[in-house]
């Protein structure tokens, strides 16, 4: 095509193309740099933790009973799983139920819907230490449940409730109205439509929300120090104090005597998160396939 254009116009075109290509080149460089930098920082942290931690992973660290010489992380590991489970058992049904109500039952002009949505958004922006303070005042002191597994789990449940609710709501909203019409058109009621058609379609999104919630629980320390306490034992009941891995790390680091073991604990925490993520991703993929 350039052959058909007169030489002057042709050279002007080339010049413009060249200057544009320099701009594009700089932009591309910046984009690559940005990507490299963010991945690099993450990789550096992970590799640093692995290098500092792996050499200190010793059998003593996995002793079922904690004492101040072996600083075993085993009770904390068990507690983390336990407290996650209890918090999810409370938060998921509540959050999912609220999401179903908001998307499927409440009318669009319902005032409660707006209020709940604003509240949830505000709550999800509050620092976890504030939840910790609330847990301390309400569960620990007012209800006199002391620093315990149940106080900690309830605090965490409240903390992740807005998250679970919002993600479930988005997942339900993303289900095409065609499915609703199809189900109602066959004479199915609202409950049946929700349970048999909408929830199965929304499962990947709901699981993704639960996964984010697990991430927050496993990584939480501030809200737990005041509600679940720091006793490094596997609790014998819901009203015993517990210490999760994050809290365990916090305690070890602040004591300053077991920095090496702290890194080793971080490696285990990293692995735990990795395993949970992989499991959830597999689940999501299986559900997405139907």
């Amino acid at each position: 095509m350039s052959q058909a254009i007169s030489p002057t116009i042709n050279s002007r075109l080339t010049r413009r193309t060249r200057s544009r290509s320099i701009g594009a080149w700089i932009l591309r460089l910046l984009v690559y740099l940005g990507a490299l930098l963010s991945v690099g920082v993450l990789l550096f942290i992970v590799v640093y933790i692995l290098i500092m931690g792996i050499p200190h992973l010793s059998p003593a660290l996995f002793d079922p009973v904690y004492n101040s010489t072996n600083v075993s992380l085993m009770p904390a590991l068990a507690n983390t799983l336990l407290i996650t489970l209890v918090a999810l058992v409370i938060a998921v049904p509540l959050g999912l139920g609220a999401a179903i109500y908001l998307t499927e039952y409440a009318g669009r002009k319902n005032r409660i819907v707006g209020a709940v949505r604003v509240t949830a958004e505000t709550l999800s922006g509050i620092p976890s230490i504030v939840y910790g303070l609330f847990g301390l005042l309400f569960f620990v002191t007012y209800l006199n449940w002391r620093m315990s597994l149940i106080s900690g789990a309830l605090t965490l449940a409240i903390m992740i409730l807005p998250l679970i609710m919002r993600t479930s709501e988005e997942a339900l909203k993303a289900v095409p109205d065609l499915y609703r019409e199809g189900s109602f058109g066959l004479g199915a009621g609202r409950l049946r439509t929700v349970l048999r058609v909408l929830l199965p379609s929304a499962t990947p999104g709901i699981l993704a929300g639960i996964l984010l919630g697990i991430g927050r629980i496993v990584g939480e320390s501030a809200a737990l120090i005041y509600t679940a306490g720091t006793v490094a034992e596997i609790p014998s009941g819901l009203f015993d104090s517990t210490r999760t891995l994050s809290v365990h790390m916090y305690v070890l680091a602040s004591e300053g005597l077991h920095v090496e073991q702290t890194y080793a604990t971080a490696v285990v925490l990293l692995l735990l998160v990795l395993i949970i993520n992989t499991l959830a991703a597999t689940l999501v993929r299986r559900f997405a396939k139907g």
Partner: protein
Amino acid sequence: MHSPNTRPISVTVDLTHKTAYRPFIADADVAIQSADITPAQEAETILANLPLEPTVERIAIKHLDLFYGSFQALKDINLSIASNQITAFIGPSGCGKSTLIKSLNRMNDLIDGCRHTGAILLDGIDIDTGINVNLLRKRVGMVFQKPNPFPMNVYDNVAFGPRTHGIKGKAQLDEAVEKALVDAALFDELKDRLKENALGLSGGQQQRLCIARALAVQPEVLLMDEPTSALDPISTARIEELVVQLKEHLTIVIVTHNMQQAARISDKTAFFLLGELIEAAPTQDIFMMPQDERTADYVAGRFG
């Protein structure tokens, strides 16, 4: 589609369909009987059996006004829909034909701010007050514009309706699913693919699956809201053929943008314009000798 020769074509095709009409597949007795008679005899019997006048009034729409908020979408609609016939609603976009068909099984209830006055009677019973809405939708099934199979396997899609209405036994469900698939002329194609996800089927198969799903609850009326508008010509032809077969057992109401489709398959046609029912008459009359000038202009392709 809007060429001036619409009229002659429509008539020929219409008659062809009535003579080439085949008995309902699922009805074994009829099928065996008809196997021994010549096509001419068959055509004669069928023509003789064709209802010339609507025998039973299945649905009666009386002074229906419908509003979306402050917008009036339907204005004083009065229409009678006869059993075992295909009634087509035609008209340009926004004329209210889809709104009306969705009123017949109260799908408009799902839309905020939609209200109506007047009455719709199903076998003489007011559908707003005289019957539970889920039961109404069981009796008046619906097929939508876009094929909307659920994201589950073929079997579960068809079994959804029967399960909803309390059929639990595996044998009963199997039977209901098979019968529905046979009725929708889909069984031979899909009998080995019952456990496959329905979203993997072709568009035409998906739409016929939706018809099968609607048939599985054994409705008395089947509403079809532009069921072929998203399909290719071959799939469209198969669905038209199927619809003609189905009217033996069902009352069918079909909304269509395609006038030739209305001419090919329907017994009665209702023409809508800007929320008003302009004219409703036997299909041949609508296309051959419309009483209203606007109907004449529309079927001649002068607007819409």
